[in-house]
């Protein structure tokens, strides 16, 4: 099934002409409504009239999360605040969040994109879907929820944190589809197996995203739960989940190019790479009203496959992610920057002690450990004081990044040093 065949299967020529029309309008709108972009364009001597179609995209300036930070919270808004109906946010590199604003139409388009993605995965209005993403500032919960409602499915807004209740409702309410992170679904699978309940579920489809996962994880999910699992991609800055999703053929994630114009650039030279070559994914939001972004650098490394898919869709496919061009970590579906941990340590200890982050996946759950070297200035002869320091650091990290870390106090000079520069992260998960 295809939710919007007219768009998802349009010819590349038609698509290009639609994208060009939308890009010209977008550039005109941000130039006149967003001072931040107007200044950026003026700085390089660019007029809106210089952009005549998609081929001119390379003339436009990039947007990075430093720009989002500088323009926090409303500086990139292209619509009056009275027209904004929603705010979502995700972790920023510093203490501040990356805030995204949405007009009513933005929410409608988001719901349309998620409905396309769910349909691509085989979900219909007859399905009963549990949304196991967090509801709140994180885009996962509300994004999947509105999309599933738009589709007409029955939505159970589980959110996160109560696996027991999720399993009970999955069985009792005869849930047929679920949207959650792949690692959490494996955790649910384990719980179902332990209680011998796998044959009691009616689940058929899982739409998993918010973190990188492997083919092997997909295989495990599909075999252990006897379902089909699909990958969904998105990011708060651009919209949320539903920017791209994979179809039955699993040959990459179809990106909805009528709303999101993708490019692949070399993260060093910032020049476009050749067709099919790998680089950093850059997205321009063609139809966003609240916070449209020109050439947003996602930092996700991938390549794009064009050419009509066996499913009939003409939308380009994002290939397997090969990592990040920055140091962001995705832990339990949450974006974590080492700099956030550093800020949290700074707030507790006055200056940043040497620290080391270890991320691993044990029994399908991400572990997040922060080791801190105990320095004389915050050392104490009382255990109580040391434990209180550890707890304060843990709570500051939790507040900064939104997930709990296991904080460990270690002796000085025990953490890894490489080439004079201290290495701060060891991600032991093999996901790329």
């Amino acid at each position, binding site marked *: 099934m295809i939710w919007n065949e007219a768009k998802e299967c349009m010819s590349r020529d038609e698509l290009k002409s639609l994208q060009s029309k939308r890009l010209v309008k977008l550039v005109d709108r941000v130039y006149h409504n967003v001072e931040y972009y107007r200044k950026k364009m003026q700085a390089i001597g660019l007029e809106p009239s210089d952009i005549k179609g998609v081929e001119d995209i390379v003339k436009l300036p990039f947007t990075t999360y430093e720009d989002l930070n500088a323009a926090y919270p409303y500086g990139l808004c292209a619509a009056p605040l009275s027209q904004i109906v929603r705010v979502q946010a995700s972790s920023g590199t510093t203490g501040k969040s990356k805030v995204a604003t949405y007009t009513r139409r933005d929410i409608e388009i988001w719901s349309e994109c998620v409905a396309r993605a769910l349909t691509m995965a085989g979900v219909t209005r007859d399905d009963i879907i549990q949304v196991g993403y967090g509801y709140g500032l994180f885009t996962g919960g509300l994004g999947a929820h509105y999309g599933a409602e738009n589709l007409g499915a029955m939505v159970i807004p589980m959110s996160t944190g109560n696996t027991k209740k999720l399993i009970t409702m999955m069985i009792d309410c005869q849930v047929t589809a679920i949207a959650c992170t792949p690692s959490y679904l494996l955790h649910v699978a384990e719980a179902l197996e332990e209680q011998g309940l796998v044959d009691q579920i009616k689940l058929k489809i899982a739409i998993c995203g918010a973190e990188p996962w492997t083919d092997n994880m997909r295989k495990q999910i599909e075999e252990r739960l006897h379902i089909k699992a699909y990958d969904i991609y998105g990011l708060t800055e651009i919209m949320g989940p539903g920017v791209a999703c994979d179809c039955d053929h699993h040959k990459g994630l179809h990106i909805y190019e009528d709303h999101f114009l993708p490019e692949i650039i070399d993260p060093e030279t910032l020049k476009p790479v050749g067709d099919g070559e790998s680089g950093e994914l850059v997205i321009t939001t063609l139809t966003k009203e609240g916070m449209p972004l020109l050439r947003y650098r996602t930092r996700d490394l991938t390549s794009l496959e064009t050419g009509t898919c066996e499913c009939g869709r003409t939308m380009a496919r994002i290939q397997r992610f090969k990592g990040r061009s920055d140091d962001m970590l995705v832990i339990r579906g949450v974006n974590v920057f080492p700099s956030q941990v550093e800020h949290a340590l700074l707030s507790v200890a006055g200056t940043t002690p040497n620290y080391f982050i270890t991320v691993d996946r044990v029994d399908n759950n991400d572990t997040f450990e922060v080791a801190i070297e*105990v*320095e004389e200035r915050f050392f*104490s002869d*009382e255990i109580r004081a*040391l434990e209180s320091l550890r707890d304060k650091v843990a709570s500051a990290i939790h507040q900064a990044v939104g997930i709990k870390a296991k904080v460990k*106090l270690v*002796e000085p000079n025990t953490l890894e040093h490489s080439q004079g520069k201290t290495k701060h992260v060891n991600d032991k998960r093999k996901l790329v």
Partner: protein
Amino acid sequence: MYIKQLSVFLENKPGTLEEALKILKESEVNIVALSLADTSEFGLLRIVVDKPEEAKQALRDKGYTSILNEVLMVHLKDQVGYLQKLIETVSGAGINVEYMYAAPTLSEGADLILKTSDLKGAEEAIRKVDGN
């Protein structure tokens, strides 16, 4: 009387205590009293030594975090109920014992190393106890 105590941070793993002790030996530091407090993740070695400043420097040179602070050293009579009487006096003054440990003396009885919420108050209270 007031005495300087050296506290050393140790990770809970084999070899760390031995290495710290080796550093003290090599600096010819003699340990008079010691206690090792442990949690599931780390240990805290508290020692009274003959040369506290030298000991601290030697440990610091080898990358160990340690601090010197004052604690009380109190004589314990070799007598049933003496420790109870001593602590009763301290708690009677509204002072909380943070930690304590005992050390042998060459003469009769033992020494008690004591850290309280109010060191001065505890010292004054203890002075009233017979034998101190």
